[in-house]
């Protein structure tokens, strides 16, 4: 199986980078940040935390449903970028994509090693929300709200299938078995939902209002 993080290292970039998406408007900031990390500036680690730990921790916690595990994975991911910044290649994608892919992959690895399907199901309620701070709001701004609207616009079935695939790491066959729906239906739901998200993202990045 090709791991997502291996793909990040091995595949060439998308060329024009139509979906140049970062938190805020940070392509340049990200480049400077990674260069500072590569130069061994400890303060850059702080800036990395400030910029990305919120999203990454929410992701790890959503996958793992355990704060201690999520914290450990988050720390590992951020430390990996500090230790091996050369693994991130800006030509292949933005820093958010790299870190999210790495964090998801690591969190799913840990989830699988825990063999905790029961835990996932038993604690299906969302973890405690701390409330969106003005800082987060400023950082993520319109992108978060836009994506939330786009996600909310999907059918419940599409959303459910995407979340089972993305956050629980289930294969299409496993989702099909769990939901008792044909495999082709599951694939269609995920593909259709992701295409709508992609189109919505393009709309945002091209500066037009969503239709």
């Amino acid at each position, binding site marked *: 199986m090709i791991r997502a993080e291996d793909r990040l290292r091995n595949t060439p970039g998308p060329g024009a980078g139509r979906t140049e998406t970062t938190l805020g408007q940070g392509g340049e900031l990200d480049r400077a940040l990674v*260069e500072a990390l590569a130069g*061994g500036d*400890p303060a850059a680690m702080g800036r990395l935390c400030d910029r990305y730990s*919120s999203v990454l921790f929410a992701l790890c916690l959503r996958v793992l449903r355990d704060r201690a595990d999520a914290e450990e994975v988050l720390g590992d991911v951020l430390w990996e970028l500090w230790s091996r910044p050369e693994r991130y290649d800006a030509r292949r994608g933005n820093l958010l994509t790299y870190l999210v892919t790495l964090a998801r992959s690591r969190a799913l690895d840990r989830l699988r090693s825990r063999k905790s399907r029961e835990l996932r199901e038993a604690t299906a309620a969302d973890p405690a929300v701390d409330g969106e701070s003005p800082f987060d709001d400023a950082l993520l701004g319109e992108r978060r709200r836009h994506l939330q609207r786009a996600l909310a616009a999907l059918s419940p079935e599409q959303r459910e299938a995407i979340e089972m695939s993305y956050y629980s790491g*289930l294969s*299409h066959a496993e989702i099909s078995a769990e939901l008792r729906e044909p495999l082709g239906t599951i694939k269609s739901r995920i593909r259709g939902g992701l295409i709508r998200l992609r189109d919505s993202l393009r709309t945002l990045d091209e500066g037009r209002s969503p239709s």
Partner: protein
Amino acid sequence: MTCDERRELWLLFASGGFAAEEERELGSHLESGCAQCAGALAEAEVVLAQLPVTLPPVALPTGLRERLVARAAADRRSAGPGRPARQGFRALGRLAAAAALALAAVSAGFLWRQSALESRLDAQARRLAELEQLADRSRALEQTVARQAIEIERLEAVVGPATDVLAIVERQRNEIARLTATLEKVGGTVDFRDEEIRRLRLRLDDHSLRMASYGSPDVWIFGLEGTAEARTASARVFWNTERRRWDFYASGLEPAGLARTYQLWFVTGDGRKVSAGTFDVGDGGEAALIDVQVPLDVGLVAAAAVTDEPAGGSLQPSGRIRLVGETRRG
């Protein structure tokens, strides 16, 4: 299957739910070097990476940031000055390595200061040990000379004065006088070093207590980022909400300029700006404002900013904004 037909499959591929056989088929096509499909996959990964952005924010682990920064600082120290530059970053790596120690950067600033104090204490202790060794050697020489003088007097009593022996005694006496003068000087230096060490220890204790207080749940930790006017600058605020006091550390700031100073502002939820004090930067572009009282009438501070102002400060901000950030519970 054509690349156009594969196009939408990359979204499914990136989400990782394919059976092994499907994944192998797409993976081998990718490895054949198809730029179109690689681009489609990269785009699919960007789309998927946006999903976590929609998650509701959660409380971040307490102290994780500080631990990672401290670990990075320790990693950097253990790697020595200018840790090996990585592929693609060599030039900037060298620059950053040179700058990092001088910066004592915002978030790491406090830890760096603590570490610098400890280093100075170590250096002082080493110097003190060297001085004490010198004093021991001087005392041993003095005793040797005294014993030789007694021996010479005993010999003179037996064989009478001898010129060469007297010359030796004279040289030994001169040596004793020199060593005595050195010892007196060393004694003064040791006293001075003792006082310096005592003073540094007090500062270290003060820093340790302050640092311990930053782990309190009452303390909010948040950052200020440099604006276009000060891209290299950043700052960190430790806000003790119970004591209503701020500790503010900044780095990467240029000198404010002739007859100018920097001024920190509390910004309230309704947009009022209240001065939190003025400060100037040190050689490394660092600055700190410690124990800044948040006035009772300010209420909840929503943001903070630093502007450059005429020397002495202003009643309201009039200069350029150099640092800005919104408060958050960290």
